[in-house]
């Protein structure tokens, strides 16, 4: 049932990338448990604005869990403690009156700080840019039904394709590795017949780019899988590894 609670926020505030940041404490009063976490921050921001202070900067857009724009570490957990949930879909009913909530931004060298809870995730675009596509120009495609794809394969590809690029996998990984993100795209395209011709070069190129961007190395800690709001499986990482072995060691292409 709906009720109203009071919580205390300890929020990471940092004016910019080269300025020292620190925690600030704010009360969030009279918060309806039906509110989403971001709506709760909206309320705090309204108050901060009226008090003549600068509101907390945080990324958000669709607020329905699909754009991947929002995200923060809530009490040590990416997107909060609920499984398979983005921060915008986390509701205040999961908190109790009197709770103290610590809010931190994603932390990784590859995700430089912008402001407060906002970080720069353009490294993900760089990884896709390195080969996360099928090279097909508009106009030349054969009929959509010309290549049948087994339903199970299509479903597996869809499981991987569900990635929203929020960065929680990197934020959750003790090594700040982007393997889950990278493997999700490599997996999706390697599973589908349309993606096979480029599978070899794609795996190598994307992994190389990922390393170049200073992401850490995967050590199979499985935290990414546990925190992914779309519950993308690390079986995709294993598939990436297989693709990589094929590409790097046994490929006929130089």
């Amino acid at each position, binding site marked *: 049932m*709906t009720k109203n609670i009071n919580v205390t926020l300890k929020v990471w505030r940092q*004016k910019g990338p080269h300025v020292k940041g620190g925690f600030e404490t704010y009360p969030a009063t009279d918060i*309806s448990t*039906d*509110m*989403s976490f971001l*709506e709760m921050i909206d*309320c705090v921001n*309204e108050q*901060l*604005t*009226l008090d*003549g202070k*600068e*509101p907390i900067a945080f990324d*958000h*857009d*669709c*607020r*329905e*869990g*699909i*754009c*991947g*724009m929002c995200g923060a570490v809530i009490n040590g957990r990416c997107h909060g403690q609920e499984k398979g*949930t983005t921060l915008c*879909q986390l509701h205040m009913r999961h908190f109790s009156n009197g709770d103290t909530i610590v809010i931190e931004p994603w932390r990784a060298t590859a995700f430089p700080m*912008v402001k407060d809870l*906002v970080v720069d*995730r*353009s490294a*993900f*675009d760089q990884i*896709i*840019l390195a080969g996360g*596509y*099928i090279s*097909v*120009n*508009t*106009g030349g495609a*054969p*009929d*959509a*039904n010309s*290549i*049948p*794809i*087994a*339903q199970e394969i*299509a479903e597996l*590809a*869809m499981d991987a*394709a*569900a990635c*929203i*690029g929020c960065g929680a996998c990197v934020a959750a990984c003790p090594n700040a590795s982007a393997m889950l993100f990278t493997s999700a795209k490599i997996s*999706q395209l390697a599973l*589908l017949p*349309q993606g096979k011709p480029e599978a070899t070069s794609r795996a190598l190129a994307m992994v190389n780019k990922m390393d170049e961007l200073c992401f850490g190395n995967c050590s199979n800690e499985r935290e990414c899988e546990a925190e992914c709001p779309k519950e993308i499986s690390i079986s995709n990482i294993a598939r990436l590894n297989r693709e990589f072995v094929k590409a790097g060691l046994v490929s006929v292409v130089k």
Partner: protein
Amino acid sequence: MHLDSKIPSGPLAEKWDKHRFELKLVNPANKRKFNIIVVGTGLAGGSAAASLGELGYYVKNFCIQDSPRRAHSIAAQGGINAAKNYQNDGDSIRRLFYDTIKGGDFRSREANVYRLAQVSNHIIDHCVAQGIPFAREYGGLLANRSFGGAQVSRTFYARGQTGQQLLLGAYSSLMRQVAAGQVSMFPRREMLDIVVINGQARGIVVRNLVTGEIESHGADAVVLCTGGYANVFYLSTNAMASNVSANFRAYKKGAFFANPCYTQIHPTCIPVHGTSQSKLTLMSESLRNDGRVWVPKTPGDKRPPNQIPESERDYYLEEKYPSFGNLVPRDVASRNAKAQCDMGKGVGETGFAVYLDFADAIKRDGKEVIEQKYGNLFQMYEKITASNPYETPMMIYPASHYVMGGLWVDYNLMSTLDGLFVMGEANFSDHGANRLGASALMQGLADGYFVIPYTIGGYLSGTSRPEITTDHPAFTEAIRYATERTQKLLSINGKRTVDDIHRELGHILWEYCGMSRNDEGLLKARTMIRELREEFWENAVVPGSSQDFNQSLERAGRVADFLEFAELLVMDAFERKESCGGHFNEAYQTEEQEAMRDDENFCHVAAWEHKGDDTDPELHKEPLVFENVELTQRSYK
């Protein structure tokens, strides 16, 4: 000014072919000499930038999010239509065309809609080739479902995430062009103005949302793919950053705004929970394929749904529209839900909700089948409401979702401002007064992949443009204007937050210019909007500086534009003395409370021309000519 839609002559089915042949081509070697600016990276913008890059043009692509992959097209759930007729159930290009024209209540252009239906098939081919994991049958062929009032199964889908998959497909093509050096990406940039030189759109001025710097970018043509303005209602299913600003700037620089009053209220959204709600969440309308909509027969019946016996339930859609039942078009479903709630039959804490019940479907098909079809939607619903739709019926209520109105464009998708092209939801052209489900994705991609690559070439090779640089006085002037406006916003220093004012604006529009409208209310709304606008410029508070990442400032700029635009929306609604599609004027309804069109006097596109900030805009009319369909009263009985 005469509005020339440039629709090619000849039989409907041959127009597009003929037009493509007649359009001048740009020599492949010359394409690299042309710069094109594309604003927006959604289905229309992303696909346009990618396709133009593939052709060899040099493209600059802008978006307000941190990555092009986040445009709000990503949130579309249900699917994308195409006239493939894979199901052998009687579909054809002509039927898709007819359904779309009829669904739009005969307020769209025949030629545009026919072209849309024609290219729909190529979209599916291209998307499959891009690696989009559409749903498939066991045999490995593509699956289809019937969707949003269509009587054939022509909707392709990828679970409840079709928009996401299509957008990521366009995004991957876009990234490929970025890697090839054909497209330069400019994320976290907000367009503040269009630069017009010699009557031609030649560039834009943007604010770098991270550094606050105002930047100038010149080009040979500008393509706006900046989405719709449903956020004018404050609460809508649109993303928080969706706004009208880019379109409104273009309008002020000479592009006509067409049919702003055509807004779509989607029937299946999660009801509002309280005053601090920031946005509404859509539940895909595919749910209506299996869910049954009902309310208690007795007004004020507060019993929990499972205690209301079958005989005391009112399945009002099935009753009223026996042949379409729960699958009537969105506008019809929404209005009926509102009517039931207005009679006091609404359910839930607020009384502004109706049930969408899956009990019968679960009984018929088993929980497993329903879970496979709608599992992720049910999960999402439970996450938001903490109620389990497998056991308790869902509660839904209409919410502002999409806008059919937008900048006026001709058959080439060019606005009344030379060199300014407008695509996707940002233009007005294909959906008339109401959009059918699974048509928005189709339109965005059709415009971007298959229309603009041809028509922009015709413009570039058919016009002469002087060489310019961003030192041109027109750029300096645009920067001056943008900077001044920013400073003005930051110096108001009042007592009301921008969100609070936006919320009030939303209330005004929802109340007086929402699902049903009347002349008196519209006049009242116009006055209220003007007063609120005055209050905004005197009493709003915008903290922070213009020189860094300042989300309050971003919002303030958008709301300032909404406050001006809302008046235009209301004026347009007032001028259209008929009911059609999403525009329902209470004075014009049949005895059965259905929308009553006035084809004699209002079979036209209303295009508004900006005449200055202190003068009323001028209304121009583009008559709609129907040669291939007969205008009928939409009936879903």
